[in-house]
């Protein structure tokens, strides 16, 4: 619902839609976009909480600031701003540092 449909310069390429899950909720994304873009497009701004329970969103969108870490398909600390969304992907908010995977 936050997508830009009309733009004076850019043309929206018709992309296939894919379904992914955000904390169990089924959401729609466009193939080729990042998880972060898909979440924002769906109105989700809070990607998790810091260790001290402050909401975190995303900041740089190019993988540099680590503010967008989320749990993707069970794996924590994924930078969703540079991770393309995939059909069936399960995305969850990350709290603090989450459990480290090896």
């Amino acid at each position: 619902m936050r997508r830009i449909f009309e733009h004076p310069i850019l043309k929206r390429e018709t992309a296939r839609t894919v379904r992914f899950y955000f904390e169990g909720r089924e959401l729609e994304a466009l193939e080729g976009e990042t998880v972060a873009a898909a979440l924002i497009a769906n109105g989700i701004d809070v990607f998790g909480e810091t260790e001290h329970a402050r909401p975190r969103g995303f900041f740089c969108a190019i993988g540099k600031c680590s503010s967008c870490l989320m749990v993707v398909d069970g794996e924590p600390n994924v930078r969703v701003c540079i991770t393309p969304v995939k059909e069936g992907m399960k995305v969850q908010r990350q709290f603090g540092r989450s459990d480290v995977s090896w």
Partner: protein
Amino acid sequence: MVRTQLLVVGGGPAGLCGAIEASKRGVETLIVDEGVELGGQLVKQTHKFFGHEGFYASVRGFEIAKKLKDQLNEHVKIMLQTTVTGIYEDVVVLYDRQNDVTLEVQADYILLATGASERFIQFENNHLPGVYGAGAVQTLMNQFMVLPGKRFLMVGSGNIGLIVSYQLLQAGAEVAAIVEIADKVGGYDVHLRKVKRFGIPILLRHTIKKALGQERVTGAVVVQVDENFQPIEGTEKEFAVDAICIATGLVPSVELAAMANVKIEYVPELGGFVPYRDQNMRTNVEHVFIAGDLAGIEEATTAMIEGRIAGLTIAQLIKEIDLSKEIESLQKELIEFRSGPFSEKVRRGLAKFFPQRVVEYSREPQTDTGPIGKLRPVIECYENIPCNPCQTSCPTGAIEVPKNINSLPRIDYEKCTGCGICVSKCPGLAIFMVQENVEPGFDLVIVPYEMLPLPEKGERVIALDRDGKYVCEAQVIKIVRFPHKTNLVHLKVPAGFAAQVRNFRVKKRESVFVCKCEEVTLEEIEKAIDLGFTDYEELRRYLRVGMGMCGGRTCRASVLSILSRRLGKSPEELLKGHFRPPVMPTKFESILRGESNEN
């Protein structure tokens, strides 16, 4: 273990140009980039570039990215979504996120073009979701066509702050204000003029003090600062915005360079800590080169030239061929580009590494605006920036940027045929066409326009001046569309206004209103319901329907019936929304007076 002759880290303008030059000479090249797409920051640049045509002036950034990608050849391998995690003495380690593996690369030469990251600034609640780097907003809106807010506060008036503000308007958002801590705007004058024409307020000597909101941004507090940049108490202003965009500068990403043993020096003029390099972009480590923002914060054109110089120098070393002519001519190009006043800081910074030269340019602006009554361009470009598409695009040679690309353009009205090409080519949107007395009682003004909606021929619009202020009513008599999307809108304005009108606003078209106070249309409400707003309170917050002076008496019932129709629910099933005092608008003054009566 992967082997390559050249490893390029970063697929932005600098890295791509390095790879192009090297691969053209047969150097086996591997480009590694973290992102999902090559092109670096170019993929989100929707504006046309300055500079000259040899470096894609007047071409939009995302189109430049395509052109660069097309120049790569079979000697180039590309790994996307891959991060260089470390550079060791004998090996470089990559992490391929797609396959979740790490790899080792041995490269004879490394070109680091890792770019920069957004400079973060300190204010209360700066962690809140809704506080974005300006680049992040650009990525979302221009690469993925997602708009993270409706109303933005822009912090910083450098080129990025100005460009992103303009692009937000193009994407349909509002910009409440641009705040700038210094006492003058940091970016190009032509960019500034573009946003001013749309009436975006610019608050100089102001900074952000606080983001408001619990879960996400709901507002911002801005404060005035004194000469020492200290906040002046009592000057706070609050803005109701849902996003804050930070455009306060960039910091070179030097970590890999440092790991490769490159000397890192503190040169504030270049963006802080930067790697040492010479004129060929070579660092103190023989096989390591750098280019682009990592080498010093500048802009994409210089990044591309630096990348090419690095690529050529590396090819020369690997292939043992003489490319000194090409390299020298690019170095000359850089000297020209950096001769203007805007590059003064960069020159001072670079002087710490090697001596700087400048070339002469002319500062003389055009003073006459041409023969009254003739259809002619008026050039409002008053700053010495490296740019000349006005000159190169003019088919009759009427425009001259004398001596050097940093000079101000001048027009010879004798030679001009009034074709309008320069107006649509100017990346600064700084050229307009005027003709007085085009018909009795009317002047003609032609403005370059890159917004939606485009008006229709014959439509009456509101003509605005250079500050976005109302001038008069105007009529659109013609629209000339260009494939590169800078359209020329011909406005007929009352005689005498040709020198004043520089923009316009499309009047709201006729609509079916549900809420007259807040001008909310049936179409907007239906769209919102389709987007997932399913109760009256939600619609009220999203569209302001029912929040006007009548308190919803005129529209509440209508909105509920639209909801019921659209959702297929009976009226009893719907939440009817809260009723809050006051029932009619009441002045604070009257309330206060009531209080004092009691005493």
